[in-house]
Each structure stands twice: as C-alpha cells, then as structure tokens.
C-alpha cells in the first residue's frame, strides 16, 4: 500500500495491463491527455483495441493510424480549433490502415455511460439523443418510460473499460493521485475501470491545497508511472502549456499517409524510448 508497490516503468505497466482485444479508455479533455502512454501502446504494437474516448483528438488519431484500434467509441472526432482528424477520417472513409468500427455518442451520453460504469449500474438515465438521427445509428442507447408519470427518458448502458489510462500532475509516496484544472470525465472513467494506469508529472511529499482538485486514492490505481511531459502536446496545468503549434502541424502530418508513416517511424518506432524514468 505504498508507492513502491505501484510505481512502474511505463513500458512495463502497458505490457502488464493492456492486452490485444481489450477495451481501453484514455481520457483527458484537452488537458492532461496521456500521449506518452498512447505512444507506448503503439510501440508495443498492441492491436484490436476497442478504444473509448469523448474526443479522439490527436491521441487516438495516432493510435488509429498505427492500426491499434479496431473499434472506436466516441462523441466528437475533430482536431479542436483546427479541423479534421485525418487518420480517423481515412479509417472511416477508406478503411485505412484497417476497417474501423465506430460507435458514436454525444458528450452527455458518453459521460453518462461512464457514470453508470463508475456507479456499478448496468445503465443510467438522461435526457438526450431525443429526435436526432444518432438515436437510430448507435448502440447502447434505448428509450424507456418513467415509472413516475410516463415521460420518455433515454437509458444509456454502462461502460467498464478493462483499462483506463489517465495523466495527472502528481502522485504522493502512498500512490494517491492528485490532479487539478480541467478534469473532464477522468474521475468517472477511473471508477468505471477494472485496471487504472496513471502517468504523472512527479511524485511529491504531500499535496498542496488547490481549488477543484481531484484525488484518486491509491487503492483504485494499478500502476503509477512517472512521465514528466507525458501529456505533451496537450498540457498539464501548473507544469507546461498546450503546444498549439503541434495541433496545427498535425493537420499536415496526418493528412497524407506517407507523411504520417514517416512521423510514426521517426517519432514512435525509432524515437527515443518514451519519457519514463
């Protein structure tokens, strides 16, 4: 029950907990996106993943292009503020590098699916999908009737990933995690998961009080990996800013298959072996 039990090298943690065919969720909404962990998954060539994430963002665009993901569960697939995710589009429009099955939601729906998973429920209820075409083109969404009055309500099925991977600012010596700033759905997707890998900027002696900070107790965490910069090119509030230029450059890098494959080899396969210590 102390940090020594949980601190692992990132390659070991990925090898131990992420397996071919798993359902994984790597969350972080714009902030604290666990890029280093994703790159390690690519490097280990783990495939046939069902990958869940509200915003595939560059992180899943890279995993999709590298052929790791065979099914994507998502709610908004763009490059935020820039435009398209080209690897995502190429997979859906042209099945390159392989067929990509999709299950599409909206943010509120996928968020509530995580809440149901975190709550140990088979489903939860929400107002949502009403009157849209998504209702008829997605799974794990159903209409039910309120037993109090007869209002129609949407039920969404729980998601319980085999592995959730997040990045956080800090862990303490006992293996507890602290993050602050925009925390999106990370708490829910951690509670919903069977295994949890957390990459952190650093290990600290004690946590300083912060507004809106979220603590993840050690008991929920399978492995803590110290990976400074592990959220680059997204950001870690209090550590480094978002590298917006990388998001803009990605439009070009990813647009063309050859350019993407060059990036994949240069930055991932032949790149320096991750940031982990």
């Amino acid at each position: 029950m102390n940090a020594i039990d949980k601190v692992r090298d990132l390659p070991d943690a990925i090898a131990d907990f992420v397996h071919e065919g798993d359902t994984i969720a790597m969350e972080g909404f714009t902030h604290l996106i666990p890029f280093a962990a994703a790159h390690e998954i690519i490097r280990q060539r783990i495939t046939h993943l069902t990958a869940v994430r509200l915003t595939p963002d560059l992180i899943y665009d890279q995993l999709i292009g590298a052929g790791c993901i065979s099914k994507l569960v998502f709610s908004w697939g763009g490059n935020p503020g820039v435009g398209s995710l080209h690897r995502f589009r190429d997979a859906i429009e042209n099945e390159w590098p392989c067929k990509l099955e999709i299950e599409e939601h909206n943010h509120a729906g996928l968020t509530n699916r995580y809440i149901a998973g975190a709550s140990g429920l088979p489903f939860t209820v929400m107002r949502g999908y009403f009157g849209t075409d998504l209702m008829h083109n997605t799974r794990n969404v159903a209409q039910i009737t309120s037993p109090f009055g007869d209002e129609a309500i949407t039920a969404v099925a729980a998601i319980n990933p085999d592995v959730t991977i997040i990045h956080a600012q800090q862990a303490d010596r006992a293996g507890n995690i602290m993050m602050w700033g925009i925390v999106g759905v990370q708490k829910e997707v951690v509670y919903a998961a069977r295994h949890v890998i957390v990459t952190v900027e650093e290990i600290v002696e004690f946590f300083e009080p912060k507004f809106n900070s979220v603590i993840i107790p050690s008991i929920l965490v399978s492995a803590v990996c110290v990976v400074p910069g592990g959220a680059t090119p997204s950001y870690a509030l209090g550590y480094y800013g978002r590298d917006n230029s990388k998001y803009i450059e990605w439009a070009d890098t990813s647009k063309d298959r050859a350019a993407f494959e060059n990036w994949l080899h240069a930055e991932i396969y032949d790149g320096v072996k991750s940031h982990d210590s």
Partner: protein
Amino acid sequence: MGLNHMTLDNSLRWSSDEIMTIAASRTLQNGQTCFVGIGIPSTAAILAKSTTAPDLILLYESGTFDTNPRNLPLSIGDGELAESALMVVSMPEIFNYWLQSSRVDLGFLGAAQIDKFANLNTTFVGNTYESPTVRLPGAGGASEIAAECAQTTVIVKQNLRTFVDKIDFITSVGFGDGSNYRKENGLRGKGVTKVITDIGILEPDSQSCELILTHLHPHTTLDQAVENTGWELKVAENLKFVPAPTEDELQRVRALVATSDKN
C-alpha cells in the same frame, strides 16, 4: 467546416467573420448564462463581456464555469479558461446539473449543413452514415445544447453547400419537421431562435418554425441571400439591416483575434 476561415471583402471595412461575431455579440444580454464553443462564439461572448454584458456568465463543456479569458482560446479546454474561472467542474456536472437541468440561457452552435427548420448536421456529408463521403466530427455537446438551452443561436456561413433542402443527418434538432416536433420529442429549450450568417440573420416563424430572413448585413443584398439558400427562402415583411459594426467593436474583435495562437 469553414467557420474559422476569414474571407475579407476588400471593399468593406470588416470581414464576414467580423460581422458575424459582432452580430452574435449584440444578441447577448447581461446576466445570462451562455454555453460557448470555440471560434466565433468565444470571440462574440468575450466581446460582449467586455462591452455590453459584463456579467455574462460563460461556461464551456470542458467544465470551466464563469470564466474570464483575456485571450481567445484555441481549444475549449485551454488553461486560461480554467485559471480565470470561478470554478472548474467535472463534465458530469456541466452536462447533468447545468445543461440537462435547463439552467443555461443561451448556446451557440455551428453546422456543416442546416435545413429550413434549423436542424443541424455535423456528422457526415454524402453517401451513408456507414460509408460517408466526408466524415465530420459528430455531435460533441451540440445535440444537448440544441435540446436544453433556453435558446440557441447558430452561426454559419450561408451558401448552397450548407443551406440545404435536406440535411444528410440530424445531429442536433432545430424544429424537426415543424412546430410540434420539439415537444413531442422531449426537447425542452425553445430551440434555435437566430441563425447568424455572413449574409444576414434568419429567425424561425412563430407558427411554422420555418427560418425567415429578418435582417441583412449592411453590405449584402436580398438576392445574395436567396441565391445562397437551398430552399425557397421566406423573407420577413419588415426586412431590416443589421447596424454596421462600430469602430470600437471592430477594434475589440481584431484585438481579441490577434491574441489567438492560431493567427
């Protein structure tokens, strides 16, 4: 999507993005809660907050609530949105406690396609859902913004690619097939009350819910509006002109846009 591409009309003192931003900004009222997206909505909201609506409460789907950014965010989850916010809440709270419980006065949306009942498509264009010609990002927070905000303003460029008779996919509901669709489907907000384009402003008819051209921008013509609409456009009896941007408005918009990393 095209929303962010600036096409400067050299004969004018403002670009189409600028006039859309300023028109959107003017619709915001002090004290309202406003669900903001990236791009023109952010610029419009920050402009309003710095001028006519200082107590406008901006919330983003990232969970940043009552945020006061000085720079224009590139993404919906920029650090400055968090650091200048009254509070940062989880997405479950933003979606369930704020949006779903109908606490938000106004939401902004864009679209790749819009029809005469203000239904919006941001999912795909061409062929089928399973095998689209162009795959777009999808719903994100848009479908619930369209459903639950008290009112929604759509900001979109007007052309035959976007203003179509039949959209390929209803990502977010405007008025469905007409006036009773929202109620029958449990959508509690009023729906789209304004569509602000680079040509003018459309508003739904109070009876039929069909979009009607109510305003032209100072530099545009009725012909332009008709030619750039993929259905037989109805025009308000008392069609008005949007007042020209003031120097102050233009200067503020340009200063804001200049703060964005993207430019």
